[in-house]
């Protein structure tokens, strides 16, 4: 397996390398980190529904839409990415696609263990530590290949993530941030000192060698360099970014697998957090303040009538 141990690279390269490899029909393992923040949309996310574009522009946060699944993510220099590209004909790809995640996330589980975090795979594509999400992953078909991309959260800017997401009101943004703190975790919570990226890189190489046996450092030839530039153009093109996607009647943000923060407005305004379709926290908004109401909690949200 060709190894692209790239280390710190530009924000757009951190998505474009694996897209370019897939489009060229080349298998590879990419390990890298971006040099600055950017918002990365999943292929079917709706930009106008999901993102506060004004906030992103005011804070120089770049936007990119990838060609694989998963939701909107804020990616930055405090994350480490592992990206696997395989030809569709590769027998390592199981028939049941969920098993691909289970297999390819084992290295991340091993790296987290070295960082003092006992994590496990939560289907379809999350890693969780003590019930809190510590890694997001997505995959899909690109050209003749399959690509899987995931991250290790060395640290995370919850405030910025909550602000880049489009919000019906400031209290929803605050609840978003709070919910992310409760349902996600990072390596920084488990380590006293920042973890060197080189060390994470070495651990990933060791772990992926167990899957691919041999990792050979790859040469970045001119064809790949050209394709990366083409990928950048394609993945940041205005029409591609604005492509309509999945829309919800009411605002709903996924915090982690099975956990959502909802907003509903009729004569009054409500916000509620659900876990596995049960209402866990319920709030109503009155004169700019939120009040919790336990009447609706621990009930299925599909039966909610307001």
């Amino acid at each position, binding site marked *: 397996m060709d190894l692209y141990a790239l280390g710190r690279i530009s924000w757009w390269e951190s998505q474009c390398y694996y897209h370019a490899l897939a489009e060229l029909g080349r298998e590879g393992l990419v390990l890298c980190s971006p040099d600055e923040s950017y918002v990365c949309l999943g*292929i079917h996310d709706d930009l106008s529904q999901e993102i506060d574009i004004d906030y992103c522009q005011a804070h120089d946060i770049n936007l990119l839409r990838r060609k*694989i699944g998963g939701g909107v993510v804020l990616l930055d220099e405090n994350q480490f990415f592992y990206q696997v590209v395989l030809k569709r004909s590769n027998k390592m790809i199981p028939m049941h696609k969920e098993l691909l995640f289970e297999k390819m996330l084992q290295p991340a589980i091993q790296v987290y263990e070295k960082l003092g975090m006992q994590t496990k795979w939560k289907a379809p594509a999350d890693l969780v530590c003590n019930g809190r999400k510590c890694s997001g992953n997505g995959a899909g078909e690109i050209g003749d290949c399959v690509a899987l991309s995931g991250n290790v959260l060395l640290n995370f800017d919850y405030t910025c993530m909550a602000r880049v997401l489009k919000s019906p009101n400031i209290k929803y943004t605050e609840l978003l941030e709070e919910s992310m703190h409760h349902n996600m975790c990072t390596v920084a919570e488990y380590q006293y000192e920042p973890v060197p990226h080189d060390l994470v890189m070495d651990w990933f190489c060791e772990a992926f060698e167990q899957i691919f046996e041999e990792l050979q450092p790859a040469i970045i030839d001119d064809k790949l360099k050209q394709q990366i530039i083409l990928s950048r153009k394609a993945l940041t093109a205005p029409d591609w970014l604005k492509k309509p996607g999945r829309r919800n009647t009411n605002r709903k943000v996924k915090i982690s697998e099975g956990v959502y923060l909802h907003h509903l407005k009729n004569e009054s305004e409500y916000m509620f957090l659900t876990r596995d379709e049960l209402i866990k926290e319920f709030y109503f908004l009155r004169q700019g303040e939120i009040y919790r109401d336990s009447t609706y909690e621990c009930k299925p949200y599909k039966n909610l009538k307001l």
Partner: protein
Amino acid sequence: MKINNYEFPDDLLYNKESYWLRRIGNRVQVGLSDYGQREIGDVLYLELGKEGQTIQQGEEFGSIEAGKWVGSLQAPISGTIAVINEELLVNPKPINENSYKNGWLYEIDMADNTQLNDMMDAEKYSRWVEKQVWLEAQEGEKHE
């Protein structure tokens, strides 16, 4: 026909990409078989191509997202897309809950109806599915 808890109506044709086809004159209605929808998982979103679009047999078009996986749709037959099931663009659940009725994906006016000879009937398809299930079980044992 029912096999391993999968249902395959006898009046439909099937292919190895697990699409079903229902012939309506020179038009064919296409959907995902019971096996196909279970393999892919809960469908979250899809893009179905456009009415009037010409597609070739085996051509990839549109996309379908389930879990965190995105794949392409594959045309089982050549022709022109006549109708897409627009309800699925808003609510794709019928693909999983009612794959043979409300879960139909699109209808296509066939360019070459002899391509239907490439399809399997319910009995042949159910035997093919049995083999896939066996292979998946072997794969599962290898992982343990």
